[in-house]
């Protein structure tokens, strides 16, 4: 039964956040404090390779669905409280905003991601609608189609190449995602012989969701409340999803695009990160079968791993520290996981990044072609 209860840690954090915001003052930090406390404790724990109990899968789904509903209620509550001038001091206003950003990212975003990957129509639509919480209901299409098909290649908008800083990655990934989602949506409405504005088109339905969500926020908190709530969605879960992608796929390369192998993604398997992120940091399993529910993912103890998740996210914001951490890991990946073809790709990527490649075999008889550097 403990396996099922584990995922209520997210419920506790959401409840603490709700209570803290409601009380106001210094208590607005309560949710963030609990979250950081859990993640801080997690940093000292050993990786958890256990497999979840599978007897009552509906229990897991019920907890996650409830948490996502709580996340929705929380953003409405936040908009309402802002509209009521509840956060009277700058400290409490900033605290409420920052707490909302991180709680919505760590707790709510994994829930909607989990749901929109599901085969069950009801759960999938629940996840699709849930994307309003990242204020980007179009995120699903580039994720499910492009990201999962082209992972570990520059054709994946979510992918950061060796040498890319987080800031450059954020600029590129948003631009690429917009272009790609337009391309995919247009392909679909063209194929089905529909006009671009046809209400049956996915993008139109998603636009309607966003309008509906904005209207709810406006009703809860007026213009200012809605504005700050949308700011939370965009600067919190939406932005940090890309920080997550930056970390989880950084620099890995594939010689067989479209055919995922477990070595093609990083993993974070510490106990609370697994729980809070709904096993998405058990990333290889998710990419191996993106329809598989989070409780069915089996940790790969031998796969590529990064240090604790929170530390990676923080390091990502300081590029020199990030490179100090990631380069030895990539070198290890090149030597222990990559195929010969992938080693050649990795070497080209290292050169492109301007990294001194200690592994270059000087007796090698071939030279890298210019195109390896070009793309």
């Amino acid at each position, binding site marked *: 039964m403990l396996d099922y209860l584990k995922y209520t840690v997210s419920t506790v954090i959401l409840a603490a956040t709700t209570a803290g915001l409601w009380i106001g003052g210094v208590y607005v930090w309560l949710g963030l404090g609990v979250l950081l406390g859990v993640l801080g404790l997690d940093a000292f724990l050993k990786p958890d390779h256990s497999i979840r109990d599978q007897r009552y899968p509906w229990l897991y789904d019920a907890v996650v669905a409830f948490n996502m509903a709580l996340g929705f209620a929380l953003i409405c509550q936040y908009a309402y409280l802002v509209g009521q001038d509840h956060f009277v001091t700058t400290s409490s206003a900033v605290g409420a905003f920052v707490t909302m950003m991180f709680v919505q990212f760590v707790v709510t975003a994994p829930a909607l991601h989990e749901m929109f990957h599901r085969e069950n129509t009801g759960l999938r639509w629940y996840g699709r609608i849930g994307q309003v919480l990242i204020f980007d209901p179009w995120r699903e299409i580039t994720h499910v189609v492009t990201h999962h098909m082209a992972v570990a290649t520059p054709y994946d908008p979510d992918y950061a190449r060796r040498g890319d800083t987080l800031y450059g990655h954020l600029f590129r990934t948003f631009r690429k995602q917009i272009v790609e989602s337009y391309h995919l949506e247009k392909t679909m409405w063209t194929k089905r012989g529909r006009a671009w504005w046809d209400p049956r088109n996915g993008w139109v339905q998603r636009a309607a969701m966003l309008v509906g969500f904005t209207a709810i926020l406006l009703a809860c908190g007026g213009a200012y409340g809605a504005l700050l709530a949308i700011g939370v969605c965009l600067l919190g879960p939406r932005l940090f999803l890309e920080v997550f992608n930056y970390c989880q796929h950084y620099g890995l390369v594939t010689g067989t695009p479209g055919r995922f192998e477990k070595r093609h993604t990083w993993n974070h398997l510490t106990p609370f990160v697994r729980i809070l992120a709904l096993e998405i940091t058990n990333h290889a399993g998710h990419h191996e079968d993106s329809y598989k529910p989070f409780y069915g993912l089996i940790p790969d103890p031998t796969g590529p791993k990064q240090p604790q998740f929170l530390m990676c996210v923080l390091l990502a914001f300081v590029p020199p520290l990030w490179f100090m951490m990631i380069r030895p890991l990539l070198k290890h990946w090149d030597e222990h996981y990559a195929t010969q073809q992938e080693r050649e790709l990795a070497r080209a990527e290292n050169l492109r990044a301007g990294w001194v490649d200690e592994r270059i075999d000087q007796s090698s008889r071939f030279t890298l072609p*210019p195109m390896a550097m070009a793309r």
Partner: protein
Amino acid sequence: MITDNPAAPAADGGRTSTCRIRLNGSDEQFDVARNDLLLLSAIGQGIDYPHNCRVGVCGRCKTRLLQGRISPMVDFALSPLTNEELKDGYILACQAKVRTDLLIDVQLGTQAILPVSMVASRVVRWRRLPGEVIDLRLQLESPLMFNAGQYVTIAASGSFVRRSYSICDAPPDPSGEGAREIGLMIKRLPGGEFSEWLFAEDRTGTRIWVEGPFGMMGIDDEPRDGLCVAGGTGLAPVLSIASDRLARHQATTFTIVLGLRSQQDAFADSYLEALQRLYPTRLRVLRILSHEPADSNWSGLRGLVTAALDDALGVDYRAVSAFVCGSLPMVEAVERVLLRQGVPASRIHADKFLPSR
């Protein structure tokens, strides 16, 4: 392939980790691990499932799903399936994760599929041909077995850019170890990442990764006279098929109709002449030019390649096997004409390619 007791469902009513795939109107069936991709699992078992690109682009693995449930890896509206086909229950086997026992409608072939391998190679011939085509010859570090008309995917060492090209050589002796070299014909595509790179300078000595073989254009066809219709470098698989069948089947004749823009684009004369020298009475080659200036000295056929496929061609359309390769619109147009002329649909083998930048 399992053929016993075709009516028996997989144990446990389809809830076990294995799903049974039954073929409509046939006693053929096979098992697939639940959640595996239908096509990949089938060809992994050596089943001759129709396919070509394996990544949802060519539509060759189109299958009608009559019973059971699959999960598509991508929305099939992003595939070559038409809206009508989507409504009629067609899926692409290469993109279908099997979730339950299935009843499907698809015509399997009868030959074992060759295993796909990744082989390193080096460019041993890089030669510019007319019509902005490169004759590329690769020496393989390990032998590769392939069938006539198949293609490989290649990528320069250290590059993410991968492109697929048909092999123009006749296949190696099936009883031998495989080919040590393969030849490809690569047309320059303006702005194309790979072809522009290849054209920029002599790439002799460059290391290239080769993955294959893929595709199955006409692998399972019976020996009979052939009509090949190629547009530009679509000639490559046609050369492979014609060379192979003319060598293996002494009584067969082949007609190759090659569509080019103008005389300036005649990139394959040396290949075709060499083949004609080998089979002077059994091979006929017709070139048809679509953009040749009206006042030029060209006395041959003019127009689109479909214009050559009339009664004057002197082919018994109902008796031939047809092999068509070229751009998607060209292949679709040729298929329509061939069907109108009486070529049975089952004997039209097509390789449609979409230029990729």
